[in-house]
């Protein structure tokens, strides 16, 4: 009975089906443990957490310089900015918008810098469904390669106040 003290000498090696199950479960746990380092070296999708400390004012300045230098158009008052393949691109997550709209080329690699001057936000790329955390004070760098072309909405998925559900942005990927 699980509600009474066990008889003395209760510490015994498991036998039978129980022993078999412990072995199978342990092997499965080891397989799962091995999958992550394997994917880190061989897989193409990883979250390495590359990041740098940044003051909000400095990040805002970098975003503005990126916009000024590379602006190619405008949609609904939001500048469309084309990144240089292999170069740095900047996306500001701010109550309650992602700024600016970034244009990229399919198959090219970019260093995408994410940060916030106010609260925590969530970078959620749709409809692909890729999600990364954005923290104020942290310049979170994703080395990212779009593998499909089209317009991709960015939405916020970390609660950031009453305008949270209107916080959107966009990435444009061309062939």
């Amino acid at each position: 009975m699980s509600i009474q003290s066990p008889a003395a000498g209760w510490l015994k090696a498991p036998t039978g089906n129980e022993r078999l199950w412990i072995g199978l479960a342990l092997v499965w746990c080891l397989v799962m443990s091995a999958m992550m380092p394997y994917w880190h070296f061989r897989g193409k999708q990883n979250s390495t957490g590359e990041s740098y400390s940044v003051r909000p004012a400095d990040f805002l300045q970098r975003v503005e310089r990126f916009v000024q230098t590379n602006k190619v158009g405008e949609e609904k008052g939001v500048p469309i900015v084309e990144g240089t393949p292999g170069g740095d691109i900047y996306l500001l997550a701010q109550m309650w918008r992602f700024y600016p709209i970034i244009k990229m080329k399919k198959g090219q690699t970019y260093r995408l810098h994410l940060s916030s001057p106010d609260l925590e936000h969530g970078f959620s790329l749709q409809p692909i469904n890729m999600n990364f955390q954005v923290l104020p004070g942290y310049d979170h760098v994703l080395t990212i390669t779009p593998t499909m072309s089209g317009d991709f909405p960015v939405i916020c998925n970390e609660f950031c106040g009453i305008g949270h559900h209107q916080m959107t942005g966009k990435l444009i990927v061309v062939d």
Partner: protein
Amino acid sequence: MGNHRPSEVRICDTTGLPVCLTAQLFIRLNAVAAVLALLHGAIAAILIALTRWPAVHLLDAVYYYRFVTVHGINMLIFWILFMEIAILYFACTVLLNSRLASRAWAWVAFLLMAAGAILNNVIIYSGKGDVMMTSYVPLRADPLFYLGLILFAVGALIGCIIFFATLYIAKRDQTYTGSVPLVTFGAIAAAIIAVSTILHGAMALIPTMLWSMGWIANIDPGWYRITWWGLGHPSQQVNVAAMVAVWYLLATLTTGAKPLNEGVCRTAFVLYILFINLAAAHHLLVDPGVSAGWKIWNTSYAMYLAVLASMLHGFTVPASVEVAMREKGYRSGLFSWLTNAPWQNPGFSAMFLSLVIFGFVGGITGVTLGTQQINIIAHNTLRIPGHFHATVVGGTTLAFMGLAFYVVPLIFQREYAFRGLVRRIPYLFAAGILLVSFGMTFAGSYGVPRRHWDIDFSGANLSAGFAAGAHLSLGVLGIGALLAFAGLLLFILVTVHAVFLGESNMGRAMQSWGEVVPNVAVGGREPIPALAHAHHTPGTMALVMVLLVTFMVYYFANWKALSDVWQVR
């Protein structure tokens, strides 16, 4: 020999166990507070579920976010911890034949917890705490919001200390011989994790309260997240340890099951204590500031030993039931022990449904979502609440519900009425919560975020939205929420009725929910022959193999889904 004063103990008329009357008082008080928090959280639940159902979209945005905060805190903190303090007091007194260490401190603990819970709720309703349960800085709530949580945590910590003090005096007074019972051992695991959890909570929330008061200039958001999750995730492991202890308890009460191997069960509890704290890392898998090495190490090395522990309990609980049923003569085929189990006993059905939902839905999704890279396609989507509604609600809440069907007759000494209805409640609640979990999980697979008022983004400058399938999934969530809410409301109504108006059973055994009748067909009129091999459990082995295969398919399907998204490092 017990250590009770003669006027402060009664002998249970059903089990013959000695019940410390002080412990009984505080088990009752904490259980009542728990059910009040549950009712409160459930009302918030139905309001927010009907808001997320796009066709209904009940609340406006302000009240939606407010009730998400109310729901999270009342359900994940207040309901669960009040109930766990009740379980701790039970496990250290009744099962060890001991008195509770201190009546005065038990009052202090209870009053602090009650005051903290009320204060925190008042601040949320006054609109000064719309920060969600996680209260991520620099989102700022009123200092009293944090103070409420801190008072509650201090009360819970005192409750844990009373539990440990009672263990000490029981040992000192030799009220039991040998090792503590398994259920008490599980409660000890839960209490140790609870202490670690509460200390992390203090580390995160006390500076945050001072920051909210303006005494500290800045709290690093990355530091807050790692520290707060030292509270946030292991506190759910307190639930798991308590839930597993309740599984063992209910398996014993409803079928007479005995653990196959006490050493295995206890080792599994020790694995929880040693390895669960680092599960806090699951919440930081796509964060800046922590490296890939940190994420992988803290996910796999530590977490999978805690997963192993759950896989062991997931075997030993049904296996113990299988052996108990086979001993009673239900031996033909793989599953006659299961089909003849006391399904009409709500304690058994709640326990077994909790086990299945926790293992097949909550466990498999949790391990998969908590895989470092797979988290990229899951973080902060509805897949996350889809996971934990299967663990905390379908698992813990359902198990605690099953426990109530014994706590009320045995501790409140009152009988449930409407017994036909009561027998159906676990099924209704389980069906509802499964739909909730599936609806959330599928919507989350489309990318639908959690804690989000409007997935059509009306009024947003740049348009966004989701496919029709996401809306359909949210409809499934809404329908499931209605069923689960109906089940929960019925549970609370019949329980409140039993506690206040139920027939007293003082002086006699509780009315049985239905015993397992020995299968005389096996032995004819002769006694049922003993089992040839007490550890032969082919039915359970078949069930866990189905679990393992399901687990593998789901796990690798998620790697495949991950490999289809953009490349990122």
